[in-house]
């Protein structure tokens, strides 16, 4: 049986510092984060798009409920969730893709 040599504490500290530094490099990808000034507060654009997508989906659902067609919609949870996500993406692509 061979005994494992203990890893020196200094080496471990260097590895940890390197890992934290490498993770910090990935943050450079977040430099494009559009936000909107609403009444003095800056809201991230994705949040506004999500709200717009959600409200549009609620509007579509209300129309379908009022007309009585909602009961023929298949897989309601998945379909409405998919609609909300699609509309969120569309809002993002229209307003913030550039």
């Amino acid at each position, binding site marked *: 049986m061979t005994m494992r040599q203990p890893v020196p504490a200094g080496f471990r500290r260097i590895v940890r510092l390197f890992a934290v530094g490498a993770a910090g490099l990935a943050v450079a990808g977040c430099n494009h984060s559009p936000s909107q000034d609403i009444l003095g507060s800056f809201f991230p654009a994705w949040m506004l798009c999500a709200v717009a997508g959600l409200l549009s989906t609620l509007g579509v659902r209300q129309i379908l409920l009022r007309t009585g*067609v909602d009961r023929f919609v298949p897989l309601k949870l998945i379909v409405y969730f998919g609609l909300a996500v699609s509309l969120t993406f569309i809002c993002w692509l229209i307003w913030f893709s550039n």
Partner: protein
Amino acid sequence: MIGSTWSHAVARPMARLLAGLGVGANLLAGLRLSAGLLAAFCLLPGTPAGNHWGGWLWLSVVPLNRLYKEIAQVTGLATTDSFVDELACLAFFAAMGFGQRHSILGVEAIPIGMLSGIALLMSFDFSAALRQRQKSFVIAPLRRLGLAADDLLVVFAPLAWLDWLAQTLIVTVLGGTIIALLSGWRLWRLMAQEHRAESDSPLKKGDR
């Protein structure tokens, strides 16, 4: 009998044979869902090889779809549950859109894929609901040709092999949305007519 289309006529003897061998509807429904989700998974990268395999898997999905319903009928498990079909169809189109993000459509392909799946499902279900009330303008012409609406799904396999998925997405999202809107509008009008006829009827609930 569930249907009288060409695909039903082909599937029926096979269903009897498989039922005799002890193959259950649930096994085939599971296979159909797995093949559909696997086809969707193959389309995710958007590479020609992935599309090719996705097309082959999707081709296997359509007969399996018919077969499991026929076996359910033969073995006395009359099922009208289409959860498996709808989930696989939605996953297939969402994956198609994600896979086409590097095509001419760009990243817009992702929401287009999801919307085309939703539009197609809605147009199928609205047309089926319409058919129960009167002749559907989608299903009736197909029936005359001996086809069911979900037989059309087989078309997406050769389109995947030919790598025409971006064009397919555009046609599906436009066509599916128009058919869903028209069918939904006709359903609404018919239900309003039924409601009016009920309220105008001299034999109202209170008069009986």
